[in-house]
């Protein structure tokens, strides 16, 4: 424990409090507005309502965008988990070419989204691929691949090499070893990576805005609506999404925290 005299602790706590207020204020505005009417910066606390939520259920435009977002998210997760896991398996323990490939995989994560997005935009144009949800899925997959790759590789590296040797030693074939030993030990890392990937895809705005077609995802739809100002039901949507994402991330944390079982190595 760091020993801090009282006064400095109070000051530190005060700064932390200010930071927390700053971080949370943009969250509270839409959530409060989803239950209370707001006009000219004043909240009318006297008349709570769920009418915004009712209105949301009838907003087909938003619901369609939400559906598209979910489709993109699921496709992205499947593609990223499969290829990220394969890449991690392929490159585990190898030296030649690994750092190069790793660098390429991490590139979209490091480059500003405007650059990766524009690069993809030009690429799709050059290969003659019409912008649509498909191009969005490709963009998202490339973006989240690094996350899945990293999570799976980390688990793979923490896995004792002798597990594989033991499996062979006991007479298992290559495939038996893969299905019965390697994959079960990776599954929780894969699940954790998948949830993180989904969360990133769900809120990805900047790449999406550049590569999307007419049908588009929720953040981009919200972005387009924002110029005109939001209808109150958007606040309801935001409140719901925030709740959902918090749940999702709590879930991801559970998968990614190393299980006790993994501690048996000396």
């Amino acid at each position: 424990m760091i020993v801090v005299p009282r006064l400095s602790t109070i000051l530190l706590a005060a700064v932390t409090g200010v930071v927390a207020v700053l971080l949370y204020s943009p969250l509270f505005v839409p959530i409060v507005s989803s239950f209370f009417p707001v006009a000219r910066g004043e909240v009318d606390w006297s008349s709570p309502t769920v009418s915004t939520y009712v209105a949301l259920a009838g907003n087909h435009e938003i619901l369609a965008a939400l559906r598209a977002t979910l489709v993109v998210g699921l496709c992205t997760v499947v593609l990223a988990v499969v290829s990220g896991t394969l890449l991690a398996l392929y490159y585990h323990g190898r030296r030649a070419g690994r750092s190069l490939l790793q660098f390429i995989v991490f590139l979209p994560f490091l480059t500003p989204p405007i650059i990766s997005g524009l690069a993809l935009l030009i690429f799709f144009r050059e290969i003659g691929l019409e912008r649509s949800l498909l191009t969005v899925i490709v963009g998202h997959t490339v973006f989240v691949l690094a996350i899945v790759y990293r999570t799976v590789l980390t688990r793979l590296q923490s896995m004792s090499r002798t597990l594989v040797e033991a499996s062979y030693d006991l007479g298992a074939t290559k495939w038996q070893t893969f299905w019965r030993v390697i994959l079960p030990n990776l599954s929780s890392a894969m699940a954790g990576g998948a949830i993180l990937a989904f969360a990133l895809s769900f809120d990805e705005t900047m790449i999406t805005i550049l590569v999307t077609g007419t049908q588009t995802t929720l953040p981009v739809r919200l972005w387009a609506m924002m110029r005109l100002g939001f209808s109150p039901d958007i606040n309801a949507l935001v409140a719901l999404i925030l709740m959902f994402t918090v749940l999702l991330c709590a879930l991801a944390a559970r998968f990614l925290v190393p299980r006790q079982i993994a501690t048996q190595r000396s």
Partner: protein
Amino acid sequence: MSSAGLGRPIAFRWSPLVTALAFALPVVFVLAPLAIFLVYSFFSVDQGQIVYAPTLANYLRFFTDPVFLPVFWRTIVLCLSVAAISILLAYPTAYFLTTLHGRWRYVLLMLLMVPLLMSYVIKIYAIRSILGLNGFLNKALVGLGIIAEPSTLFVFNMNAILLTLTLLLIPFAILPIFLALERIPQVLLSASHDLGASNLQTFLRITLPLSLPGVASAASFVFVLAIGDFLTPQMVGGISGFTFGRILYSQFGTAFNWPFGAALSVALAMVVIAAILAGERFGRNRGASL
């Protein structure tokens, strides 16, 4: 024992086909687009048509035109300011977290990270409405008697961009600093106290130097994220808050000059690479963990 043999997994012998596939996805969808993008920066546009002939005109224009370089510098200064303010707020916060015991430390850390999960667009919108002429901030300032009239100081200008980006990016500064602080072995602090140093001396001579790598990573993180953001300036910057990202984006929209946009992106990429390298260089842990 045979430590030389430990690096080589016996797990799988992959066929060349699998090797090709392993490279295919990242190479086709990451490397190829970036390469084409780079090549594009050497093309030009004539009457809405892209001319596929190599030229340095785009780069020349970037350096000679009186518009672009000033915006470029101004954007870099803006993002450096965002990084600096974020760190000024994040460091005490991260430090406070490490003074907490047991699970509270991580609960509070998680709470400070939750805003990251909130929809990005919505956050910008909410911040805009807070900063607006009729927003909560002006209401509060007037209510407290600090200003008499609602101020336009934070409405549709560079200040608005600065505040919004800072608010959005603080969590990215807290995390690396917290991790660096947490990694400092407690025995070092005890040893410092044991050798007669005061709390302040211990902080200045032990804690601060050992946490600087975390500060460097945080600065590099925040800077890169800020400079790559073109939506926030678009939304809260109005007409006066013109950033490099917006100019770049407009080349692909209203201006329709993709090759020039690509050249601007290369300039942006250079800055980003420099920032990442600097973060790497100074962010490397110099054996702080025993």
